[in-house]
């Protein structure tokens, strides 16, 4: 029973996921499509948000317009990916694998790893955030954290923004930047 967990964020960084899935992953029996709502927005202070703070935040946001907007966005993202996973554009064929959509809130990397363990998946597919080295140091990179701590194989898919900063490594001299 091959289970794959696909973690999708907003559009940026997640683009490569569909391509990677259709090109490389052979028929999965079950796909779990996960979107993690970031309650704290794009705050850099995510590391400071422990469980207590998160649950307070969650409580205070319940029923608010902001939460509803987040939920609507999550639904939109998940329906898009669910449809795209079903249909392989290249071969114009649809598959019959089970796709389960899950919405979680909190820290993306934590929720991804938790769900992966709970469901006992064989592979996690994440997108690449496309952040530069400096941004990554400040904001932390989801794909790196997931890959570091996952117990199962991780496929890091690439969108258009990724590998652009790769030119920095060419020639060890440039590495010293």
């Amino acid at each position: 029973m091959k289970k794959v967990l696909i973690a999708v964020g907003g559009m940026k960084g997640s683009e490569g996921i569909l391509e990677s899935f259709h090109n490389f992953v052979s028929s999965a029996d079950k796909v779990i499509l996960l979107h993690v709502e970031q309650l704290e927005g794009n705050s850099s202070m995510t590391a400071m948000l422990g469980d207590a703070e998160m649950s307070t935040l969650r409580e205070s946001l319940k029923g608010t317009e902001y939460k509803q907007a987040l939920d609507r966005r999550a639904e939109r993202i998940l329906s898009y990916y669910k449809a795209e996973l079903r249909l392989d554009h290249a071969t114009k064929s649809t598959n019959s694998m089970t796709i389960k959509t899950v919405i979680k809130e909190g820290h993306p990397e934590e929720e991804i790893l938790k769900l992966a363990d709970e469901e006992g998946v064989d592979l996690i597919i994440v997108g690449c955030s496309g952040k530069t080295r400096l941004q990554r140091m400040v904001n932390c990179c989801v794909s790196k954290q997931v890959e570091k701590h996952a117990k199962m194989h991780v496929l890091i898919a690439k969108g258009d923004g990724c590998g652009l900063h790769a030119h920095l490594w060419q020639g060890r001299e440039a590495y010293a930047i």
Partner: protein
Amino acid sequence: MKKILIAVDDTNGSSSVLSAFSNLLRPPEEVILLHVVRLEGRSLMTDMLGEAELSTLRESLKGSEYREELDRKARSILDYYRKELEDGGLIRIRTIIREGIPADEILKVAEEEEVDLVITGSNGKKGLLKFITGCVSKNVERNAKVPVLVGKPERNEKAFGFREAVAKI
């Protein structure tokens, strides 16, 4: 044209690439098996090795016993993985041996060969050790322009007899 680059070495972490490959991936049209020989051994000073130093190192090692030993080891690692892949039914396999800094060579080969996917193992190092000695899979993953599949050792579903192969090397 689906070309996959599989980067292997003699550590335990590499064997997971076989499980990742056979269990999860669609058979590609071509597989390139790459082993990067570490001329500098397990030195921690790899960041200091620029092109000039590496070519000096390469020159001084030419024809030495150490170099022959490294080459022999490289060939047996590649033979082992090639056999495993062929046993799994794969036909088009090409092997490449490079030398230098693993992450850089992997990325270079990935670009030269215009592969569609890179698979590496994970050496499983944690925390401080990883920070100091560096992590090949992390560097590859971060800088590659193509998707990277990082295989994890704990989920090996088949026993590959890797220990026997290592003993023969």
